[in-house]
């Protein structure tokens, strides 16, 4: 792996423009008061590295709406004979032409949050484990992730509670640390090589490692005390039928789905055929377990008709079911978006902490 590098802030736009010549470059930019991950355009975009992006970067690898293939029913040539029942068997069957989407372009995501990079590695076992999803895996392989360590966590950040970190080196390909005058770039994987060849990159300054470590520690510290979530998976299972618990926590929820749409780890989708006159596209688009439609069955029965059951699923999936299938890893990355953007101020931290408290009480009562 290449040695650590450094790039002056003033050189960043030129570096990104250089990369953009051969790659799709995605970077956070300000738009309408939000920070969104957008395709970098050196003419119009200033990269925003100081504010936290409103949305996660998951759409780069898992588009909001993605064409799995397009289809076209080929016209059957008009053959008067085929209308005769006696010759029907000989008539040509209608043909369908399917076209696959183009292979994904080489991509680099620059300046993503560490929790967003963590989101990607929670996608990996889902789309690249027992079931191999070529759409995701091709993009994953073609994409270099450059995460930027957070210098200043928000009041809604809690990555340290869930096994991540404002400067985690587990998930991205490169970790960038802001030294004020520029970015210190540490390569974390082989993939990093693809973007570190530029002449604009300097060798890392002396003491860079220690300096970065100090910044990382300060950010970690700023998040504050880390409560124990030991056994949260079983605790939530114990609480599954505690109606009052889920009812009271979900009372303010609007079932709007902002939380799941902004979450870097929510990965559910729905499939629709969008067609007109025998041609169309099969789309895979984001779905949300907070919506009633998500579990609506063909019979009309809905096992999660109540929003309480849906909120329970969201929290349960992140803090219980996912762990059981993925070696104890909590899928939530603690980015806090679901708290920050929730119009009804639902706070997943409060639910989880309350579960820890209630779970102990329920267990004691059972043993007692």
């Amino acid at each position: 792996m290449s040695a650590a590098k450094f790039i002056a802030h003033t050189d960043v736009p030129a570096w990104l423009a250089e990369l953009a010549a051969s790659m799709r470059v995605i970077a956070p930019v300000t738009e309408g008061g939000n920070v969104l991950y957008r395709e970098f355009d050196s003419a119009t975009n200033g990269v925003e590295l100081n504010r936290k992006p409103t949305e996660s970067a998951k759409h780069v690898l898992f588009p909001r709406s993605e064409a799995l293939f397009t289809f076209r029913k080929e016209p059957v040539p008009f053959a008067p004979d085929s209308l005769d029942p006696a010759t029907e068997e000989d008539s040509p069957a209608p043909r369908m032409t399917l076209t696959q989407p183009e292979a994904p372009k080489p991509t680099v995501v620059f300046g993503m949050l560490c929790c967003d990079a963590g989101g990607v590695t929670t996608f990996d076992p889902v789309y690249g484990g027992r079931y191999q999803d070529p759409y995701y895996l091709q993009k994953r392989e073609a994409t270099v992730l450059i995460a930027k360590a957070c210098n200043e966590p928000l009041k809604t950040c809690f990555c340290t509670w869930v096994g991540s970190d404002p400067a985690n080196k587990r998930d991205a390909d490169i970790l960038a640390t802001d030294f004020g005058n520029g970015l210190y770039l540490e390569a974390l994987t082989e993939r990093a090589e693809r973007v570190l060849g530029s002449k604009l990159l300097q060798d890392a300054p002396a003491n860079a490692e220690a300096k970065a470590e100090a910044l990382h520690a300060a950010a970690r510290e700023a998040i504050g005390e880390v409560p124990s979530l030991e056994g949260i998976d079983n605790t939530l299972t114990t609480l599954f039928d505690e109606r009052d618990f889920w009812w009271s926590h979900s009372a303010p929820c609007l079932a709007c789905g902002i939380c799941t749409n902004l979450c870097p780890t929510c990965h559910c989708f729905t499939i629709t055929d969008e067609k007109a006159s025998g041609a169309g596209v099969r789309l895979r688009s984001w779905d949300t377990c907070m919506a009633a439609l998500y579990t609506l069955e063909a019979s009309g029965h809905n096992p999660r008709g109540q929003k309480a059951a849906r909120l329970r699923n969201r929290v349960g999936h992140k803090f219980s079911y996912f762990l059981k299938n993925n070696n104890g890893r909590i899928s939530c990355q603690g980015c806090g978006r679901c708290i920050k953007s929730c119009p009804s101020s639902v706070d997943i931290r409060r639910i989880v902490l309350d579960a820890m408290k209630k779970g102990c009480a329920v267990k004691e009562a059972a043993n007692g």
Partner: protein
Amino acid sequence: MSIQAQLRDAILKVLPDVECVIGWGPGPDPLRNAPLFMKTPDDVERFEAGPLSVSNLAVFLQEYKGNKVGIVVKGCDSRSVVQMLAEKLINREDVVIIGYPCEGVLDAAKIVTKLGLPQEALEAGMVAKLELEGESVTVTARGKTTELAIKDVTATKCSICRYPNAVLSDEFVGEKREGLEDSYGDVDKFLAMSEEERFRFWEKEMERCIRCYACRNACPLCVCKDHCVATSRDPHWLTQADSPRDKLFFQLIHATHLAGRCTGCGECARACPVNIPVGLFKRFMNRATEKLFSFQGGVDPEATPPLQTFKLEEPTIQERNWK
């Protein structure tokens, strides 16, 4: 006694007769309150009302239909309740309305832009502390404390609010306030753009819509959330494509379905996580409803909303001799 204290007393009085009283309590960061569902006098201790009580709690009422609940309302929230009553979406005997004169609610985005901190501090989550005192709000962010006049940082809807007092209530606390004028200046400004410019404006805005439908679910008057045309499979009205066309299409449907019903509470726009000014569609419709039918949503519980009735000839619509 402060309004908050008076409201607490009113809530305690109502509490024994209802399943719960819906009000506001502390939120996850100092900039906002969260909805609070009070069942016991202890819960009432946590009740807060004032410039942070932004959310319109009327959105929850339909869930409690058939069970008696109490609700604390600002002027704008009360209009949602009234409109629901007019449309028989809730029963009058199921709801105890506790009203107060609202002085305006804070707009978190305005506060963060006014803090005088560098651009990178534009983040509500960086506000460490917020104190309200009389006409001013004191905000601490990044170790710096700033005092702002509340009137400079209230939501835009509050500066044109015609009904600051609950228009209908069973308990009303506090002194009634004067309403303000609304001349729909924002709509005029928008209409001053050319058609092409307007189209480009929405194309650009809708592009970042994530199709979460918070604008729909935050709306107290949207009645078909779980059966929405935007997401239903059968019939399949809208494609799921990530295109401004489909997203704009949904907004037009929502605005049309809210025509003559919307009370201008602004929750659709406040809920939008990517700040799309979706309230503008409804403001346009509201102005049209006022002009054509002399009707404002949520003012009179006995009124029949204009699009739910039919007159052979509308006095303000000239159908004959079209030119």
